[in-house]
């Protein structure tokens, strides 16, 4: 049966075709063609997804889960997995973000990477990433999602290490890949456990995990331990991919990749995969209150932990990286309190403004000939007007200034946290207070970023006199604004960052939440019910809004006072608390040098010395030694005397004869 929605495979197929094109003929056709094809396939996929979304919205809400089967994939006894797509509001929303923001970033890359000799390889990886990301968000079962999950991990690895000639970059790529293995371990166990418990891995359709889980729950057949284990193991996977504490350490280093990669993979799309997965499996979390609490607490802790670290970073991209970690924490906070739709709302708005901020920082970095240290920036507003004004929008959006996009999504999460009934009520309020403090810190460090980069006196002139000589761009002197291929995406994203919040609602003014209603078929609470989100009186809603706005304004004001003239004297060197924050409270050092190298080294050494050398080798050598000992004992039999052998044969013959006789005799007796 074919339907309009089978076109979803064209959405995946377009970037796949682009990937194959770049991989096989990309080197021959020239940069212009590669850039045009790479961008066109992604934007084409975007147009098609938008069309499918319009078609989907024509259907009644309860029918908005359409399955398009491509082929049977694995069938072994009861284990049946099909290669099929689930088309519902959640998957199409993500497809739109991936192809929309992704398309803009591809366009931006045609400018940013213009001077790179490996241009076709870059677009090969980028299009492949889009393919895998679409597989991840569109899949109808956990296993196919896992294929996409690993695929985006691979592309992330390839693109972090894109400039592989520098060992730092390949080390960062390895770190990202290895840390993600820990998360994937949890994901894999969750998949196995889910199949073992529910007998299927499907998200929707005739037989699906969630329906099964709810039935088992009603019949009191579902053990709380198992469902909590499944939810927590899925969350372990999410902490890896979405860079949550304790596995966030790979994301800041992932900034070694080209800036469009940081924007696309490590801010807008791939790192939100964990949130998407948790939202997709929200029924499991609803059935496991303990797991919900863990998600919320880890989320809010990561949010404030990363926000404090961002305060002292000097590399412009690392500030944004920690900001991403922090904002991802917000999204998980939303999921943890049961507001899955709000979490996804923040995923959406964050994709706009964080992609914008990253691309803006890329524009700055390119203008300064790959300078990333904010201490050597400053005063750039005059030279990079478009970058400045667009980043201004991103800055206000992430800080939570109404009516920009970030304000609505962040406020929704904080309000949901305050009023949640999914957790003990006082717990929600504590989490809310931490979240509010994080909002203040966010506004502060983003203002610092803007101040150090764009305001005050230029600090790059001195640094450039001796730096720009052999620069590949060939021109030094004043930084120049980037070409239109880079500024146009910036402007589009800036507009989206400003108005993107209006797709949601605003409770204090009784504007219904269209975004939540739109996601209802995918993310609506099925077990806990709507009342779990609580219902706050309008006065409390206003109070929460004013608190959010106050936090944002206060953060910006502190930042303005301190950084409006550029770099303060006492920040030229890293000292005291700032040094501790810069070094991530030495957590990265502890994990990499301590747990990874020291403890891991100890364990590896023990595995080698004891398990391998003694147990495995001992067993193998032991068997060989025993065989040798038996042989050397028995060789004495070989005397070399012919008469000995003849005698042995004689004895053998006699024994045989006697045995035959006895047998014959007893057989005769028996007869």
């Amino acid at each position, binding site marked *: 049966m074919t339907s309009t929605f089978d076109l979803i495979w064209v959405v995946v197929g377009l970037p796949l075709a682009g990937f194959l094109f770049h991989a096989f003929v990309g080197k021959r056709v020239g940069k212009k063609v590669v850039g045009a094809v790479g961008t066109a396939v992604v934007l084409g996929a975007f147009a098609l997804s938008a069309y499918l979304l319009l078609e989907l919205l024509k259907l009644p809400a309860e029918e908005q889960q359409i399955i398009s089967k491509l082929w049977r994939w694995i069938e072994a006894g009861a284990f049946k997995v099909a290669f099929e797509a689930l088309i519902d509001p959640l998957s199409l929303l993500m497809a739109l973000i991936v192809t929309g923001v992704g398309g803009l970033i591809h366009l931006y890359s045609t400018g940013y990477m213009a001077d790179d000799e490996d241009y076709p390889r870059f677009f090969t990886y980028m299009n492949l990433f889009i393919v895998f990301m679409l597989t991840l968000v569109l899949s109808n079962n956990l296993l196919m999602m896992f294929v996409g999950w690993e695929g985006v991990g691979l592309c992330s690895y390839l693109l972090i290490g894109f400039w592989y000639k520098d060992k730092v970059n390949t080390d960062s790529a390895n770190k990202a890949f290895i840390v993600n293995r820990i998360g994937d371990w949890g994901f894999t166990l969750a998949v196995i456990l889910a199949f073992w418990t529910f007998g299927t891995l499907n998200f929707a359709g005739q037989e699906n995990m969630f329906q099964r889980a709810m039935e088992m729950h009603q019949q009191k057949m579902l053990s709380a331990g198992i469902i909590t284990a499944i939810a927590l193991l899925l969350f372990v996977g999410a902490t890896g991919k979405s860079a949550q504490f304790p596995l966030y350490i790979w994301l800041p280093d992932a900034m070694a990749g080209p800036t469009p990669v940081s924007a696309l993979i490590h801010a807008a799309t791939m790192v939100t995969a964990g949130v998407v997965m948790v939202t997709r499996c929200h029924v499991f979390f609803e059935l496991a209150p303990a797991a919900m609490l863990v998600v919320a607490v880890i989320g809010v802790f990561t949010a404030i932990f990363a926000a404090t670290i961002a305060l002292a970073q000097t590399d412009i991209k690392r500030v944004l990286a920690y900001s991403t970690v922090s904002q991802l924490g917000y999204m998980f906070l939303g999921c943890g309190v049961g507001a899955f739709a709000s979490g996804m709302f923040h995923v959406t708005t964050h994709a706009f403004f964080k992609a914008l901020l990253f691309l803006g920082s890329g524009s700055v970095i390119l203008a300064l000939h790959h300078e990333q240290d904010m201490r050597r920036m400053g005063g750039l507003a005059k030279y990079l007007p478009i970058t400045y004004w667009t980043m201004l929008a991103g800055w206000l959006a992430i800080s939570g200034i109404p009516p920009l996009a970030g304000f609505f999504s962040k406020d929704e999460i904080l309000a949901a946290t305050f009023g949640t009934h999914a957790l003990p009520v006082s717990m929600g309020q504590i989490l809310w207070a931490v979240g509010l403090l994080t909002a203040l810190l966010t506004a502060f460090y983003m203002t610092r970023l803007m101040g150090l980069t764009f305001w005050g006196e230029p600090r790059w002139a001195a640094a450039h006199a001796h730096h720009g000589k052999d620069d590949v761009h060939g021109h030094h002197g004043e930084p120049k604004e980037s070409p239109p291929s880079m500024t146009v995406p910036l402007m589009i994203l800036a507009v989206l960052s400003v108005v993107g919040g209006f797709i949601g609602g605003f409770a204090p003014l009784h504007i219904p939440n269209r975004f939540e209603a739109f996601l209802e078929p995918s993310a609506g609470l099925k077990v806990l019910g709507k009342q779990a989100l609580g219902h706050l009186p309008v006065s409390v809603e206003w109070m929460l809004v004013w608190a959010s706005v106050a936090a944002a304004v206060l953060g910006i004001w502190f930042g303005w006072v301190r950084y409006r003239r550029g770099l303060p004297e006492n920040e030229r060197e890293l000292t005291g608390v700032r040094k501790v924050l810069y070094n991530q409270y030495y957590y990265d050092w502890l994990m990499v040098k301590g747990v990874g190298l020291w403890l891991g080294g100890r364990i590896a050494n023990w595995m080698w010395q004891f398990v391998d050398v003694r147990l495995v080798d001992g067993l193998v050598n032991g068997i060989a030694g025993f065989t040798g000992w038996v042989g050397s004992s028995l060789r004495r039999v070989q005397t070399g005397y012919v*008469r000995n052998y003849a005698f042995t044969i004689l004895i053998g013959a006699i024994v045989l004869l006697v045995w035959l006789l006895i047998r014959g005799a007893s057989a005769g007796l028996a007869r």
Partner: protein
Amino acid sequence: MEAIPISWFLVLSAFMFAMGVTGVVIRRNPIVIFMCIELMLNAANLAFLAFARQQVQLGAQAAGQVYTILVMAVAAAEVAIGLGIIVAIYRLRDTINVDEMNLLKF
């Protein structure tokens, strides 16, 4: 004419065979050992012929006798090779005592 009972032949055959075995095990001269082996083979031949005589069918009688001829041919070939080896060893080592031929050992 009273036929000689088969047990007589078999007793003689067993006696010859036992003598052959004993000789192989206790004698050191390879030529004597060969002769003892011939004794064992001929004991077997005797048993063949004795049993063949018992058969009523002509074909079955012939089978036993043909086997005997076959064994004799094999024995002749064996002796030819064996004596050749013994001569070769004697030329090499000036002795044919089997107890001194113990190089092929552990």
